């Protein structure tokens, strides 16, 4: 922590009084990072970038947006047609929201595959689930703002979920609405909260990173780093690797923004909200579909709501459901099969959530829902006991050196 290592006198003067440069230097140069991280470790920095893009474009959108039932739809159309570069800013905001979820889902599945939720990273994982919940709330309220048909009916259906709570349900829904239906008070408060929540997310992200830096990153083989030979400094090695990811991300995002800006949206949301008529087929944004499928799979209202929230809540206790001491799926042959089954199950739920709730789709949703819970509540605890894992390497360097030797 010696400030003297900076050659620039201004930096030295500031750092002596406010050690921000020491902190940055510590993160970039001293913070040891496992040397074997693969590209699955890029999604954290990409999630951070997405959050920054959302906040910047969002603040700019808010300068032209009007949170009133009579003007909201028009003000968004004005952003699209008249405000300088408004179309670009809105399309970036819309599409980055989707990309944010893609990135975070990959980030979560990375953690599931490599056992990153296990000791000593339980709180790191839990903070991640908290961020995920806040993101869902933020995106849900953002989608209400343009006040199209999907905005309105999405808001109606989701807020009505709380009416399933016995006794106080109805009062809670009235409280959320500020009236007897989704209306102007609802739109106003959603805008206020939509503005607030990304900054709460930023706060939790800071805690997430503090927890990360306590023990450092997990890695593809899931064993602890044993010393200097297992690690490299974050800068320049992982800064450059992260930049490769950022370039790919921005490339794909640009393709979406400039060529398929509405591909992940729903055309009905370009119809102004009409409280008297529900669109024939309402679906939430794609990133909510797996949870929506679970909601609809259960024939009972309260049961559906409980299972839907339970599907996320179960992630909080995951570190205690999977008791296997081996982290990485590389050394868990049976777990690996079930991991991919869960992955397919999640995709299947996403597909089913977008289909009408009738016939074969309902049956399939029920099977997929049952499998989801079976995986976490039965299979993982059983595997922790019965699976025979492969022998672990002694250190991160060992398998790396072994392959080099073999190659020579």
């Amino acid at each position, binding site marked *: 922590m010696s400030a003297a290592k900076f050659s620039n006198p201004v930096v030295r003067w500031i750092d002596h009084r406010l050690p921000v440069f020491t902190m940055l230097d510590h993160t970039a140069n001293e913070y040891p990072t496992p040397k074997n991280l693969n590209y699955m470790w890029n999604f954290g920095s990409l999630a951070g970038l997405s959050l920054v893009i959302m906040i910047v474009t969002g603040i700019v959108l808010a300068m032209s947006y009007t949170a009133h039932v009579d003007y909201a739809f028009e003000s968004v159309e004005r952003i699209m047609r008249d405000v300088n570069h408004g179309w670009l800013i809105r399309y970036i905001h819309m599409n980055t929201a989707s990309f944010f979820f893609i990135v975070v889902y990959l980030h979560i599945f990375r953690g599931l595959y490599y056992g990153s939720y296990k000791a000593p990273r339980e709180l790191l994982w839990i903070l991640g689930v908290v961020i995920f919940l806040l993101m869902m709330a933020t995106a849900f309220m953002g989608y209400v703002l343009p006040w199209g048909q999907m905005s309105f009916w999405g808001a109606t259906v989701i807020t009505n979920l709380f009416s399933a709570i016995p006794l106080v349900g109805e009062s809670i829904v009235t409280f959320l609405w500020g009236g007897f239906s989704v209306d102007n008070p609802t739109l106003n*408060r959603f805008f206020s909260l939509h503005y607030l929540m990304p900054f709460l997310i930023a706060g939790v992200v800071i805690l997430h990173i503090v927890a990360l830096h306590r023990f450092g990153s997990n890695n593809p083989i899931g064993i602890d780093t044993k010393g200097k030979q297992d690690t490299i400094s974050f800068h320049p090695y992982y800064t450059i690797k992260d930049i490769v990811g950022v370039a790919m991300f921005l490339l794909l995002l640009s393709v979406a923004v400039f060529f398929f800006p509405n591909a992940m949206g729903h055309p009905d949301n370009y119809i102004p909200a009409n409280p*008297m008529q529900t669109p024939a087929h309402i679906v939430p944004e794609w990133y909510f579909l797996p949870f929506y499928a679970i909601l609809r799979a259960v024939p009972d209202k309260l049961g559906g709501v409980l299972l839907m929230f339970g599907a996320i809540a179960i992630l909080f206790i995951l570190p205690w459901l999977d008791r296997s001491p081996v982290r990485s799926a590389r050394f868990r042959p049976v777990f690996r099969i079930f991991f991919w089954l869960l992955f397919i199950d999640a995709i299947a739920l996403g597909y089913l959530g977008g289909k009408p709730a*009738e016939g074969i789709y309902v049956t399939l949703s029920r099977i997929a829902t049952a499998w989801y819970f079976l995986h976490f509540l039965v299979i993982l605890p059983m595997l922790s006991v019965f699976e025979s894992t492969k022998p672990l390497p002694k250190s991160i360097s060992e398998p790396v050196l072994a392959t080099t030797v073999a190659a020579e």
Partner: protein
Amino acid sequence: MAKLTSNSKSMSVDTKQQPGRRDFIVVATYAMGAVGAAAAAWPLIDQMNPAADTLALASTEVDVSKISEGQAITVTWRGKPVFIRHRTPDEIARANAIDGSELPDPQEDEARVQRPELLVVVGVCTHLGCVPLGQKTGDVKGEYDGWFCPCHGSHYDTSGRIRKGPAPTNLEVPPYSFLSDNVIRIG
């Protein structure tokens, strides 16, 4: 100085052994602080409940004589759709054909109407709040010929009672009264 230290020491030993006036003050202070914080938070929370003007929303008056038999109209009350259907004798018969106590949300048809031919219900699905189909000619009316909610597939009968699907209760009957033979006031 030395005396003071030894003094305070013996005091803390005392308090550990038996709760004294000091502990009472500490607990009372915490409690007071908690009550104060809750009182300060309440207006911030309660402001989200419906405001006075929202609560004071006017009731809706409807002339029902213009609805011909077999026809239905939708009016707005408290920002929600209300379905008013002039039922045909066949629809009334079908609503009464079943023993109401056997339904998911047991209720007899006669408990839901003031005049058998005029059914007034809030047009909001009791599942998650969509507006069911069945008001317009050509709409899907579901398996029981009343209303069908396309959102998650709830079927309502000609009395607006839930028969099949995830909705837990019958379509709500709003409070209404006949102002004259032809006009009802909802609310």
